């Protein structure tokens, strides 16, 4: 062996020996009983002002409500995919009672980890695990985002047809997706159906950014849409979708936010943008997580099954904040309420993109393309 090898090996060995003696307990290793230890693994980063921020906010809600009865922690795993599985495995080894993950990408990892850790509880949101694998310790939360998008589609169409100052006569609205994947297309399907509900001849410009974090690209695509006559657009692209809100400000057009109430995020730092966000399609990841913990506390959490949360369970919704009130005229607000009611009652049934193949989605996209 060459001496080149000696130094690094020597360093590793000596450091390892030095620390071998003083290995402590892991951080979560505080063993006082009665405290429910909850960890939330985000496979992205905070600051997207939508999905993951909402998820992280769920931990705050739980902490606010249960205070010292719970110990919560949110771990950002970033968009560094190879790091996700090791993190999940590490966390599963630690002393956590409930482990929360989200998005479809975590599903298959979770299925294995949950099977290997039957004594732990797992919550997964925005997707579900395969329960044929006998996963009695996993609770899956799905959201009927298609229903909320339906309302957004209806609202957008109503707005573009109205005589509001920032709209144009074209009957054209926009949809800006992160990626061409089922969860995003589920928004699209609802959006399209809602739009057609108000006007069957409506045209929708659909673009995908191809990323959930490239805000610059998001903005460019939104600008392209706006410059082709779109006067209200809907972004479903996590952090990348923020680009659309910026584009709306540049072009002075309307936007619809997603997942979190995106107007709220901008009230402080950038009111001009907030003023243009007609509403946001809310995916209440935060509330759904609180709800899950509530049920867990009461011992009623439906582990071993999945739930689809809609308007009734406050799983999804439409942000009706001050900006909504300011932008949307009263008759359209009434229309929105009416449609919401019809969805709740089941009078309107919204299709879902889950299970649709690429062909069907393409057909739908082509049918409404300008």
């Amino acid at each position, binding site marked *: 062996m060459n001496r080149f090898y000696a130094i690094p090996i020597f360093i590793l060995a000596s450091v390892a020996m030095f620390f071998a003696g003083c290995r402590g307990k892991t951080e979560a290793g505080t063993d006082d009983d009665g405290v429910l230890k909850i960890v939330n693994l985000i496979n992205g980063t905070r*600051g997207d002002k939508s999905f993951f921020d909402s998820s992280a906010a769920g931990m705050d809600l739980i902490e606010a409500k249960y205070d010292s009865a719970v110990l919560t922690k949110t771990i950002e795993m970033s968009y560094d995919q190879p790091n996700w599985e090791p993190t999940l495995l590490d966390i599963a080894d630690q002393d956590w009672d409930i482990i929360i993950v989200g998005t479809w990408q975590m599903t298959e990892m979770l299925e294995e980890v949950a099977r290997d850790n039957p004594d732990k509880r797992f919550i997964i949101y925005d997707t579900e695990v395969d329960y044929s694998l006998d996963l009695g310790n996993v609770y899956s939360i799905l959201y009927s985002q298609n229903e909320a998008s339906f309302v957004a589609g209806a609202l957008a169409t109503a707005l573009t047809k109205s005589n509001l100052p920032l709209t144009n006569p074209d009957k054209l609205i926009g949809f800006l997706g992160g990626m061409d994947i089922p969860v995003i297309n589920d928004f699209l399907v609802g959006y399209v159906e809602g739009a057609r509900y108000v006007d069957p001849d409506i045209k929708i410009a659909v673009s*995908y950014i191809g990323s959930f974090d490239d805000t610059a*690209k998001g*903005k460019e695509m939104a600008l*392209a849409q706006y410059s082709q006559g779109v006067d209200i657009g809907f972004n479903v692209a996590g*952090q990348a979708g923020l*680009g659309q809100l910026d584009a709306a400000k540049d072009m002075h057009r309307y936007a619809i936010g997603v997942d979190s109430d995106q107007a709220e995020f901008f009230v402080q*730092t950038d009111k001009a943008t907030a003023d243009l966000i007609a509403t946001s399609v809310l995916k209440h990841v935060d509330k759904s997580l609180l709800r899950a913990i509530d049920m867990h506390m009461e011992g009623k959490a439906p582990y071993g099954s999945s739930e689809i949360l809609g308007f009734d369970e406050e799983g999804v919704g439409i942000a009706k904040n001050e900006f909504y009130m300011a932008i949307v005229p009263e008759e359209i607000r009434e229309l929105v309420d009416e449609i919401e009611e019809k969805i709740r009652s089941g009078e309107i049934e919204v299709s879902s993109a889950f299970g649709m193949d690429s062909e069907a989605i393409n057909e739908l996209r082509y049918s409404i393309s300008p």
Partner: protein
Amino acid sequence: MNAVFEIVLNPLFAFSVLRVSTPILFAALGALISDKAGVINIALEGIMLISALAGVIFSAISGSAFFGLFMALFFGGLVAFGLGYVSLKLKTDVILAGIAINLIASGGTVFVLFLLTGDKGISSSLASKLLPKIDIPILKSIPILGPILSGHNILTYFAFISVFLVWFLLYRTPLGLRIRAVGENEHAVDSVGISVVKTRFIALIISGVMAGFGGAYMTMGYISWFSRDMTAGRGFIALAAESMGGATPLGSMLSSLLFGFFDALSNSLQLLKIPYEFVSMLPYVATVVGLVIYTTQKTKRMHRMRIKAESKKEVL
């Protein structure tokens, strides 16, 4: 096909070509200056990223967009100085040093962002400022030209003015003479008592400041916040644009515009029935093709000249 023409002929499309080209043009001019001095600056990507973050942070702290711009330029120059230091003083290979700086920029900006805001993704919690847009009084009201040329960010105008400034610098000033001389034969410069290292340092710093403009534009004009790795290869594309433009200011401008054209097209073409992945690939393919066409033409031209010369003599 008609739909494509419709998109391209829309004045708003031309407007967006100018907008998209701006950061690439800045970086390409940066690449040009360092190239003329005989240094390949592949750290442009990282410099833009660092400047972009600096612009956001300092405009948020000071509340002044122009102070943000100033700091973005300062950091652009500073990082370029660092590149100069390691490549000219420590004699690191300049390409490797560039790779290193890009790496440091990519991780370091997220790191700093996290320390400041707690977010790793985006700086939207900082109330950063935007550089103003400018409406050009008379031009504004001219149809077609007005919507294309008026209402851009101040830096977009400056980018195109810079093309002239960089040309002037290189071909009309003593410094430009020295920069060109140092790139062509450093010994010549050395032997007349001008410091090669110092001249390259100056060229690199100017190059960094140009990239700094590009970075500042990214966060204070193009969009209004910083997000991780937001330059998305623009620094590299600028290098390609500069070499495609035959290492001249005007050529760099034209090839930056070409790239901007394809980039803008890729954003609009999605609305047609073309898979988005194909469309997203377009600008990069165009760059490679452009580069190849440029170099092919160059070799062909030389080849033609040669054949001509040989045959001419033969006839005589």
